[in-house]
């Protein structure tokens, strides 16, 4: 049996699969960021906090209202998405005409406030959330033990990512959206309610983050910092893929999860930095990102 740098190929398969699983979180989160940036030109730094809120709403639903995981999977994105709508209407709208930097600072500040509030009420060490009974256990694939839940995460995020891509690229609503991105004034002149479109898009992007949060709740600890740890990596993913590129963010999300997974085998110490190294390299060669267009 051949070995690659001392790693048996079977172990490698397992790691590749794990990388894909982590990649699905990157994909779904960076997709939300890309959608928001595409239309609103807002670098949504609250995304991590909204991902965390998604997980927390799922936890609250279970503990206060007795809602199970599946209900949370639907309700949590709606609830958190709605808070996104409120944020857009109350705050983001007012700075829409200003430089990127203002949106970045505003959303970053919001993220700090939200995280602080949750930390105050729920502490920092996290809350338990069990895997739904239907997805407990796992399958032995021969080269690794695949928990059913992880399999579900990959499928669910792939479906959501592709559906989003389809909606934006192939439907009439998506066409309006893309038109509004290109030229909001002209699109509005054609009788399309662009401000409403903008608000809903932000809400949708936020809902995607919350969806990822619910997916993450049973496997990572539900704690106020869960998004802050992840969001920096996700931003790197978006930058590598190219800001605002829908397909780019999905592909980069999955492939960077993969690269990170492999680094964890070959040189674990670097696994937290490998994505940033790639980001630097990509920016040197293609400043607009792998799939981005230069303005």
């Amino acid at each position, binding site marked *: 049996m051949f070995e690659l740098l001392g790693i048996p190929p079977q172990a490698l398969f397992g790691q590749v699969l794990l990388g894909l699983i982590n990649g699905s979180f990157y994909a779904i989160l960076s997709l939300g960021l890309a959608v928001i940036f595409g239309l609103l030109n807002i670098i949504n730094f609250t995304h991590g906090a909204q991902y965390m809120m998604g997980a927390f709403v799922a936890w609250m639903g279970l503990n206060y209202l007795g809602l199970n995981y599946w209900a949370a999977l639907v309700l949590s994105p709606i609830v958190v998405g709605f808070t996104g709508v409120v944020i857009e209407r109350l705050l983001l709208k007012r700075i829409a005409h200003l430089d990127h930097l203002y949106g970045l600072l505003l959303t970053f500040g919001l993220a700090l406030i939200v995280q602080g509030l949750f930390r105050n009420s729920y502490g920092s*060490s996290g809350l*338990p959330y069990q895997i739904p009974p239907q997805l407990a256990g796992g399958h032995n694939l021969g080269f690794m033990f695949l928990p059913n839940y992880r399999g579900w995460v990959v499928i669910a995020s792939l479906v959501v990512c592709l559906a989003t891509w389809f909606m934006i690229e192939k439907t009439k609503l998506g066409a309006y959206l893309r038109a509004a991105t290109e030229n909001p004034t002209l699109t509005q002149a054609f009788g399309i309610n662009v401000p409403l479109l903008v608000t809903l898009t932000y809400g949708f992007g936020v809902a995607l983050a919350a969806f990822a949060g619910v997916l993450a709740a049973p496997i990572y*600890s539900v704690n106020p910092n869960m998004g802050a740890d992840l969001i920096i990596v996700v931003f790197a993913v978006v930058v590598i893929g190219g800001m605002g590129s829908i397909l780019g963010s999905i592909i980069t999300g999955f492939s960077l999860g993969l690269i990170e997974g492999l680094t*964890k085998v070959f040189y674990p*110490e670097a*696994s937290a930095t490998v994505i940033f190294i790639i980001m630097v390299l990509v920016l040197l060669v293609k400043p607009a990102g792998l799939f981005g267009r230069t303005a």
Partner: protein
Amino acid sequence: MKFKSLLLAGAFAALMSGTAFAQVSVKVGVLNDRSGLYADLSGEGSVIAARMAVEDFKAADKGIKVDIISADHQNKPDVGSTIARQWYDQDGVDVIMDVPTSSVALAVNQITKEKNKIFINSGAAASDLTGSACSPNTIHWTYDTYALAQGTGGAMVKAGGDTWFFLTADYAFGHALERDTAAIVTKNGGKVLGAVKTPFPGTDFSSFLLQAQASKAKVIGLANAGGDTINSIKQAGEFGIVAGGQKLAGLLVFITDVNALGLQTAQGLVLTESFYWDTNDQTRAWSDRFAKLNGGKKPSMVQAGVYSGLLHYLKAVEATKSKDPTVVMAKMKELPTDDPLFGKGKVREDGRKMHDMYLFEVKKPSESKGPWDYYKQIAVLPAEQAFRPLSEGGCSFIKK
């Protein structure tokens, strides 16, 4: 007439001694993680514990004025060092307490020695604080990696877990914990098959767990803490590692971690701590008071250690009527320690606080009566057995 003058003299003496006492005023800085993964086990709770120590000691009645300030070191050695320097140089802080995260603790240890102040560490684990990095200005109060290794590591090897693979948090603490545990494992006839250093702090440990699984080691030693431990235990359950016959050794698990994991996931875990709130009437009474001030959360051993450490410091200040670090430190090492939380003990020459350690097992959900009822005690490790012998630490100022 005679009686009257006696009374007067007495009153005058009391007044004089009162003013003499009141001249001692000390400033205590509680430096820890107030926002990150160790905030629940130290954080504001440690500040509450420090305030309780001042209150219980009745410092004001004894003429000692105590100011408590606190700050967040964010688990970053550079941030911690800056705060420590500022506290010592500008804010007149006499003693720094707590400081979880070994890398930060080692930095503060060095600065405290440089500035000749006092550092009573409760939160950090690295046994280097009383070993290769020991300082005459530091007391390591609550626990250390050697004691954790002795407790959990020793127990696991005795129970047949003789081959180990480590998941090690990649910083000073993880390295120290792996080193000390590996030593215990080999000493007891076990073997270490491998280790993987995981970036700190981490979220996804599945890749590392898979490597541990592939090693076929009987025991997977988690040389990490806080959120890292929570995530690794959660994910080990998910990947069927425990069901597959490998055992997890949570080398440093705090009660706050068990609370976050839930008993369903944490049950059966064996762990070592120096304090559990439900040990006796005194610990229960104190912990109830603490919980009332801390939003219902019971104290961790780190928070209990801050209380106990500050109490001992104040005793030494009272006895010497001084806050000169050299004088107070000598007194702290001379006076035996005694408080409701850790019982009787002492501070050893090299700064190691000596007390018993306990081996606990996490209860099954059915055995628990409610929130925070989590542990059953399975063994007591006497202090002399739990902590590294003075002669083996390699502390530079200890005469051999």
